[in-house]
């Protein structure tokens, strides 16, 4: 009898050990061993003072296997209050005839743990990182967005994807019968993303966005953008857009609102471009700030007749006065003096027709006319900022060259990565310091009593800049519209030793005013009157 029992036990042992051994070993391994994906924490993005603008927090993608649910209604009732979702939405998801369905993605870790603690069969959570933008709308278009898989989709998030993303790791955990880990190994350790510090200043950015919102309220434009930068380094302190977008909920914003117009809005610059023709002619020695021009009220160039903004007879204006009063006829005269070839050369020397190289993805290059495509009337519209497309960033960079003594620097947004300061992009001299100083002095006149922005002043500070009011091409007629304009102002301060530059571009302002001097220039004043003392820049 004993022998028989021993024999039976032997057979059973052999059966379990030999025939079922492999399958049982696998089952035991599955019960005890779990392979976890360790999501790398995405690097933070902060402003120049260390204010966090984008932070990643642990979260979970909650999913369910509806086939494993016996009572979807009860599950929906229990999950709804925890996830803050309507019961019927959950029930619809849990009743699907599928083996996998997402209940909610990127659920904050605490909330997800509470949901998983309900121990509803088939409900699982995959660890992920949730991107949070603590300031909501602040610099939303510059910071960009992160996709559901944690990858950068636009803005700084996309441009620095490799640095910010880090590397996902893998962890193998062997647990005992009660689920306590008895062995933990990491075949691939996760590598957290690098933190990126921007040149943006959250306070200046906030104030710039506030000013743009006020402009939008007053003039109901289609959209608007503003750039504040340090002309001596090319560091961008603010890049604001209107309409605003909520970075935490990009789906709620229109695609237009998510566009960073600073680099993605090609427009005809109008009078702000006159500075190119004037600077070139000054540098070539063709004119001086005091050179006199006989300026009629209109000029015929090939088949085109170009007028000044205000009707006037023949006037004698100096170069400075041409800039201050923004005379179209005067600028065309200077352009003609320069000639098409040299003017075209100066357009490219100022960086137009190519991206500035700012560290933002998808920067537009703008459109400049090739010299061999110049027509007889080209020199009648190009020097006054018609017939070429530029971006606000290109204009800001060009003016910063004048402000910085003639050195054109690529604007930049990233100050340091992982605590390591990024080298400043190298600039190239396009104007002599003397010419740049002369242009700066002439631009002071724009805000003087005779200038087109005479109403703008900041007590104690000498300002310089240029207004621009450009007609937009009507896509229906193919001609310049008489109702749609782009109002802009680009200026810097203190005029003698510029430390801060601001460019404002307002697309299609309405409510009675369309001019750069009345729409954009006051906004320039408001931004500068905050930023100059804020940065401790003394008046001269």
């Amino acid at each position, binding site marked *: 009898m004993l022998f028989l029992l021993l024999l039976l036990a032997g057979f059973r042992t052999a059966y379990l050990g030999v025939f079922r051994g492999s399958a049982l070993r696998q089952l035991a391994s599955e019960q005890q061993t779990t392979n976890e994906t360790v999501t790398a*924490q995405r690097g*933070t993005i902060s402003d120049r003072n260390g*204010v*966090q*603008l984008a*932070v*990643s*927090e*642990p979260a979970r993608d909650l999913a369910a296997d509806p086939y494993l649910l016996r009572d979807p209604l009860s599950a929906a009732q229990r999950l709804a209050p925890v996830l803050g979702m309507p019961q019927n939405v959950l029930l619809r998801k849990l009743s699907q005839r599928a083996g996998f369905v997402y209940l909610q993605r990127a659920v904050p*870790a*605490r909330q997800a743990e509470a949901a998983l603690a309900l121990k509803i069969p088939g409900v699982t959570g995959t660890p992920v990182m949730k991107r*949070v933008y*603590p*300031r909501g709308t602040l610099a939303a278009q510059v910071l960009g967005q992160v996709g559901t898989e944690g990858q950068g989709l636009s803005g700084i998030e996309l441009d620095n994807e490799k640095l910010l993303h880090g590397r996902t790791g893998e*962890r193998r*955990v062997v647990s*005992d019968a009660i689920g*306590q*880990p*008895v*062995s*933990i190994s990491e075949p691939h350790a996760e590598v957290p993303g690098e933190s990126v510090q921007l040149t943006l*200043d*959250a*306070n200046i950015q*906030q*104030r710039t966005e*506030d000013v743009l919102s*006020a*402009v939008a309220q*007053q003039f109901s434009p289609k959209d608007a953008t503003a750039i504040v930068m340090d002309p001596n380094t090319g560091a961008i302190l603010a890049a604001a857009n209107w309409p605003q977008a909520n970075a935490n909920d990009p789906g709620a914003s229109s695609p237009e609102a998510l566009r960073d117009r600073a680099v993605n809005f090609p427009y005809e610059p109008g009078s702000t471009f006159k500075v190119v023709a004037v600077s070139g002619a000054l540098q070539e020695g063709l004119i001086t700030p005091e050179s006199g021009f006989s300026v009629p009220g209109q000029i015929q160039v090939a088949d085109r007749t170009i007028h000044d903004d205000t009707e006037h007879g023949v006037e004698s204006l100096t170069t400075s006065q041409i800039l201050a009063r923004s005379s179209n006829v005067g600028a065309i005269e200077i352009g003609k003096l320069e000639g098409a070839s040299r003017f075209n050369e100066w357009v490219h020397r100022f960086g137009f027709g190519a991206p500035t190289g700012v560290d933002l993805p998808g920067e537009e290059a703008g459109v400049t006319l090739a010299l061999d495509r110049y027509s007889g009337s080209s020199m009648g519209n190009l020097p006054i900022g018609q017939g070429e497309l530029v971006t606000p960033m290109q204009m800001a960079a060009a003016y910063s060259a004048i402000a910085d003594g003639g050195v054109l620097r690529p604007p930049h947004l990233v100050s340091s990565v992982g605590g390591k300061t990024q080298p400043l992009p190298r600039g190239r001299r396009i104007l002599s310091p003397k010419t740049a100083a002369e242009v700066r002095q002439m631009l002071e006149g724009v805000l003087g009593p005779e200038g087109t*922005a005479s*109403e*703008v*002043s*900041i*007590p*104690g*500070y000498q300002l310089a800049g240029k207004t621009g009011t450009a007609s937009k091409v009507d896509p229906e007629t193919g001609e310049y519209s008489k109702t749609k304009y782009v109002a802009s102002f680009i200026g810097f301060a203190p005029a003698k030793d510029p430390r801060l530059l601001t460019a404002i571009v307002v697309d299609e302002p309405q409510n009675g005013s369309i001019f750069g001097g*009345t729409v954009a*220039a*006051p*906004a320039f*004043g*408001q931004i500068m*009157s*905050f930023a*100059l*003392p*804020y*940065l*401790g820049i*003394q*008046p001269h």
Partner: protein
Amino acid sequence: MSPAAASRVQAPPLAPRRRPRAVPAPRRVSGPARPAARDQAQSGLVVGLLGLAGRLDALASHRVLDRLIRSRVWIGIVAFALIGIVTLQLGLLRLNSGIGRALEREGALQRENAALSVENSELSLGSRVESQAEQLGMRLSSVAGLQFLSARKGDVSRAATALSATPAHEPVSEAPATSEAAAPSTSGESGEGHTESSESEASGTGGGEAPPAASEAEAAPKSEETATAAPTGETSAVPAGEGGGAAAPAG
């Protein structure tokens, strides 16, 4: 043969001694001659390994070990070793369990850190700081009211003294009119860095909407205009006049 001599002959040795094997000389192989140093190193390694093997062999058949294995002490040693192994395993399990807990804690701290970062960013919001400062009786100075004065030797200590003398909660407006007293001495001593304190009431923004805080500041009495308040609302409770003209609205 004497019995003593016979016992010497008959008694087998306790541990048979083996002669160490002679190290064979490396054979010459065909091909280019190798460096002599490498040959020497290799032969030295072989000699060392063989010596170690010999020593281990001698240890295994050592008299003391042999006696130990045959005695009861061995049971104790084995039991001790078994207990040690179990204890080691338990320690290992505890360590792994600790790692598990540490990982959980890491996750919790990560969450907490992210939440604090978000909170920190929200708390440093300029408009919030401004409103808090306003509640404390501070107000934003207009651009016209700002004065940039050059710091001189001794200003830091004077500012520190003024700072400690002024209660933190005391509003700027309640401070004595020190600017009148301080301003002349400042300009008289240095004569530089004192820019115009514009009398203009205009904020200089050309008809645009001035920030509400700025317009409030414009209503402030002239005597307070030397108090330099950072436009972010990071206002200073110390009147600039008391600081000996060292204050500047730094960012």
